[in-house]
């Protein structure tokens, strides 16, 4: 077992706003329960997505698993260590990538940051060079290693972040929204890269994301957390089973259209000044698009899966009802 969590909870102390001067002299606090007694385990080589809406508790869970924050209660083991002890042996065997934060020095080149990490992780020179050559070739960034980080694009920087976090060959790689803000090409490359290294090195992956394509292409198992509680743990197919026949069409019109005209083609789920999003049956997608193109002044159509937030909200409602 690589990760084993039993009854993990985390509470945060939050200051209440009571106004001046009470805020300064007698501040009052309340506790917010971010994660409420969740339990799960992950086996070696598994690739698991931790999903949930904003504020669900997934990033808190990941931060506890990497030893960044202290759990309020629960029994937590990662690679047989209590993460918060931050034992050197444990830290050498994990890697962390955070989509919104950079571990690379902005004013230096990626190579200079990699060199520093080589010393910190005690990677032998030969192994470092070999690994770096392999990774930069797979991610096609060999020519960018000596360019200042601030001059790289977001996608290029994220590839460098990935290299930085796995140069030392971690056994578990934690990824917090690794594809956030990236364009479709960069997302595809990073997904393929993650899948490849997971298959070839047997690294265990745990990622949080809001992007359903990340989940489908990188992970085999999905854990859904909502309002701090775990309420789904299974395969992606199982999660989407109920929604596999649904698609969302976002229709952008060249002129104003009344809702009545759009309603004929599907259930309206979102309405904006010059666009509507409708829910349709996946099997009828070609004929519905054809009919819309012929009858309405359409400028553009965007086809998407049912958003994760809605699936979770729907699941949550059906459970509580």
């Amino acid at each position, binding site marked *: 077992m690589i990760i084993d969590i039993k009854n993990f909870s985390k509470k945060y102390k939050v200051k209440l706003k009571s106004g001046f001067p009470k805020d300064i002299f007698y501040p009052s606090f309340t506790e917010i329960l971010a994660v409420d007694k969740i339990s799960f385990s992950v086996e070696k080589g598994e690739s698991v997505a931790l999903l949930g809406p904003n504020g669900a508790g997934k990033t808190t869970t990941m931060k506890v698993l990497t030893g960044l924050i202290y759990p309020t209660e629960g029994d937590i083991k990662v690679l047989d260590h209590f993460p918060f002890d931050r034992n050197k042996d444990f830290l050498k065997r994990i890697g962390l990538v955070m989509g919104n934060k950079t571990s690379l020095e902005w004013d230096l080149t990626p190579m*200079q940051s990699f060199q520093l990490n080589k010393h910190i992780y005690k990677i032998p020179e030969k192994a470092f060079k070999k690994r770096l050559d392999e990774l930069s070739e797979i991610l096609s960034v060999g020519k960018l290693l000596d360019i200042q980080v601030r001059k790289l694009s977001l996608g290029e920087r994220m590839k460098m972040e990935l290299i930085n976090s796995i140069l030392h060959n971690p056994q578990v790689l934690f990824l917090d929204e690794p594809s956030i803000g990236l364009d479709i090409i960069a997302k595809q490359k990073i997904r393929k890269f993650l899948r490849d290294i997971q298959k070839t090195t047997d690294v265990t992956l745990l990622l949080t994301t809001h992007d359903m394509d990340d989940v489908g292409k990188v992970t085999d198992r999905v854990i859904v957390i909502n309002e701090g509680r775990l309420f789904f743990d299974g395969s992606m197919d199982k999660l989407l089973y109920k929604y596999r026949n649904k698609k969302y069409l976002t229709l952008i019109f060249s002129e104003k259209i009344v809702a009545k005209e759009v309603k004929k083609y599907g259930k309206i789920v979102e309405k904006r000044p010059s666009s509507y999003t409708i829910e349709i049956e996946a099997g009828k997608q070609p004929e519905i698009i054809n009919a819309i193109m012929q009858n309405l002044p359409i400028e553009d159509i965007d086809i998407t899966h049912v958003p994760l937030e809605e699936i979770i909200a729907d699941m949550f409602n059906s459970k509580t009802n």
Partner: protein
Amino acid sequence: MKLSEFKENLKDKLIIIKAVSVYTFQQETAYWVNTWAHVLSTFFYTLSMILFIDVLYTNVNLVAGYSINEMLLFLLVGQSTYYISWLVYSNISNLITDVNNGNLDLILVKPISSLFYILFRKINVFGVLRDSLPPLLLIILKIDWGVFSFTPANLISGIIIALMGIVISLTFHLIMSLPVFWIGESSNIVEFSSHLEYNVGKIIPLEGYQQNYRFLFSSAIPFLISTGISTSVMLGKSNSIIMLVGSLTVMILILNMRKLAWNKALKAYTSASS
């Protein structure tokens, strides 16, 4: 800890310090033109201090029992300890920023003592040499060295006390930065403690203080050690053994306090959300 473990640990830390120094040098030289502007600022500050001392001693021979050359030596020790602190001081203000924006996350996952890495992740060797050499040279040339009769014991004791004083002052500033883990900000607290260090420790010699203040500023607020006490010991005005033992005691106490406070702070760390 076993001796072999201690040696291994020390070796690791020296390797990191070397790597970090190179890394910081690369950062400091990334913007070549900007880096030189600071030299002018430090040089003119020292020049104004020398002029002030010259003016001060026009009508008097002694200030707080110090002759003009002794006062210039005090200035030299004060400036030297300030520049040595500067090697790593920026790491304390960076810690506050990193706690606020959550970038501390990516430091805490490194397999190295977090407290050590926080304090030494940037070592501004090049910047400090560049900024300190011209003004220090100015003071050295201004001092009439022939008037001093240092004993080797006093000189070595004074230097050791100055180094311990630097560790003590930096540790005090680090402890002052830790409220950021609970209240979300502490830059003004650190700024206050830095001003206090300058005003208490770098302007008035030890002998200028009454006994009560000497005790206060050598213990609870230990800013007299790096410059006031060390210069006094070098000049033979204070007992070197007593001051060495006293400074060592304060250093051991404050380093232990720092470790306790750091462990408490990490437990309170909530990590800014991504």
